[in-house]
């Protein structure tokens, strides 16, 4: 008798499709990723921390982490505004704006990188004007944050937009008719309902920014200890044939991203359960 691992179904092709999926997944993703895990286990704990504790590595983590966090926060503010506009605003070319939201996904990161650098370089119109105000963007941590906002914005918009569209306006009308001000309605009724999609947009933007390379590397200036992001440091270590160092930084970076993703899933499950009970 066969082990019952799946529910009976009249459809054919389960074995073939599942077999191929698992085979291809292993070949392209799992086996290569396991190389990273095994390599880092060869380092051992002490070797791992030896690399991670190096001031240049710590500095790169700090820059990456802080910039990604700030960028994700700004992306939330900007993203909620744009999502609100896309769902509730009245504007003739909304469809066009909606299509443009995905530009950072569609534009190769190297192109966004050189475009943002050209836009904010001290010798450009905008960069010059900002420098006149005492704000330096290109080749500073602010530049890194700007590039990460560019990359993270669509994540927030695309998480919040459908939730906002599904939002039951009756709740808002009820709050308004019971005497709440517009601001109170927004703060007490709408925002709590939007909190899960906002949080998941934030986490997606943050996790993407942590590993971002192409759009950041041109505008960052790449000064060790100051504007060197973690993903660039991996490449620097590789160019010096320091495989162990590159591996240790990669493992730390990957663990952080996975932790962030795990957090989103937790939030989503909680939110679904909460809304399901309500």
């Amino acid at each position: 008798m066969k082990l019952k691992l799946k529910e009976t179904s009249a459809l054919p092709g389960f074995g073939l499709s599942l077999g191929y999926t698992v085979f291809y997944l292993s070949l392209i993703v799992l086996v290569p990723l396991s190389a990273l895990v095994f390599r880092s286990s060869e380092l051992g704990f002490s070797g791992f921390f030896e690399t991670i504790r190096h001031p240049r590595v710590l500095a790169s983590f700090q820059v990456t982490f802080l910039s990604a966090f700030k960028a994700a926060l700004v992306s939330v503010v900007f993203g909620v505004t744009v999502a609100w506009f896309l769902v509730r605003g009245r504007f003739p070319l909304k469809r066009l704006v909606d299509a443009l939201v995905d530009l950072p996904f569609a534009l190769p990161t190297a192109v966004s990188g050189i475009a943002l650098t050209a836009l904010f370089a001290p010798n450009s119109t905008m960069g010059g004007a900002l420098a006149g105000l005492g704000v330096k963007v290109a080749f500073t941590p602010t530049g890194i944050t700007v590039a990460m906002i560019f990359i993270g914005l669509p994540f927030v918009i695309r998480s919040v937009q459908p939730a906002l569209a599904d939002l039951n306006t009756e709740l808002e009308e009820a709050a308004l008719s019971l005497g709440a001000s517009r601001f109170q309605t927004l703060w007490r009724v709408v925002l709590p309902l939007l909190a899960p999609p906002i949080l998941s947009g934030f986490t997606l933007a943050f996790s993407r920014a942590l590993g971002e390379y192409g759009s950041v590397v041109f505008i960052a200036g790449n000064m060790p200890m100051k504007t060197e992001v973690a993903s660039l440091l991996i490449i620097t270590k590789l160019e010096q044939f320091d495989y162990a160092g590159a591996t240790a930084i990669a493992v730390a970076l990957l663990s952080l991203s996975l932790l962030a993703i795990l957090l989103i899933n937790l939030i989503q499950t909680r939110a679904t359960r909460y809304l399901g009970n309500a």
Partner: protein
Amino acid sequence: MKEHPKQTGGFWGNLALCAAALAIMGLLIVLPLLVVLKEAFAGGVRLWLASVTDQDALSAIWLTLGVTAVVVPLNTVFGVAAAWAIAKFRFKGRSLLLSLVDLPFAVSPVVAGLIFILLFGRHGWLGTWLSEHHLRVVFALPGIILATLFVTFPFVARELIPLMTEQGSEEEQAALSLGATGWQTFAKVTLPNIKWGLLYGIILCNARAMGEFGAVSVVSGHIRGETSTLPLHVEVLYNEYSFTAAFACASLLSGLAIVTLVLKTIVELKGARDAA
């Protein structure tokens, strides 16, 4: 009724909202795109044409197209197979498999490149064996293809899985009970139902495959005219201070991005119309 429930505020409220949203989108999204075009044509159309038909640029374009032509079909076949297994059947480990399919999205592109160096590089696991047999994976075409396969892995599958789960399998079961074979059922019933979702996934996969930078940058070795894809060629030119040439090549990639967005919007509209 005073106002439509879906609308925000009055005239001024809407105006403020539009102004804020358009300022964000304009400054952050549209302006960089315009800068690329401005810089690309800064030396006139003739210089732009010369930059994009330069020998190295052409070989970069061909390499990019070639890699995409291998990667997109492979990941499409995988996406359909994975969606069939995951969406149409309930089995043990299904949700684990679902997370593993999404895994490459959580991996930094640079880390994605690194893992192939660790496997196939000179000091990698298979490095000695490969060099004994005079095979090159890293700093050569196979490495670029593998890295691109990795970063574009989930695109098609992740579009199809929710779509096919939602559609269920009643139509397929009806076709089968009427005597259709499995393949006939797939071609005549499933495929027409998922065509827009499938196309959507392919468009996104294609855009990323042509534009991938971080992962390919790690495995390619930047050999001019040999292992430089178009995004890498942009970087090489930029770092040589050939700004106009760099932006000219970048304008080709921006064109690709715009075509992607247009196609994506069309497919979304068609899909929504079919679903309605």
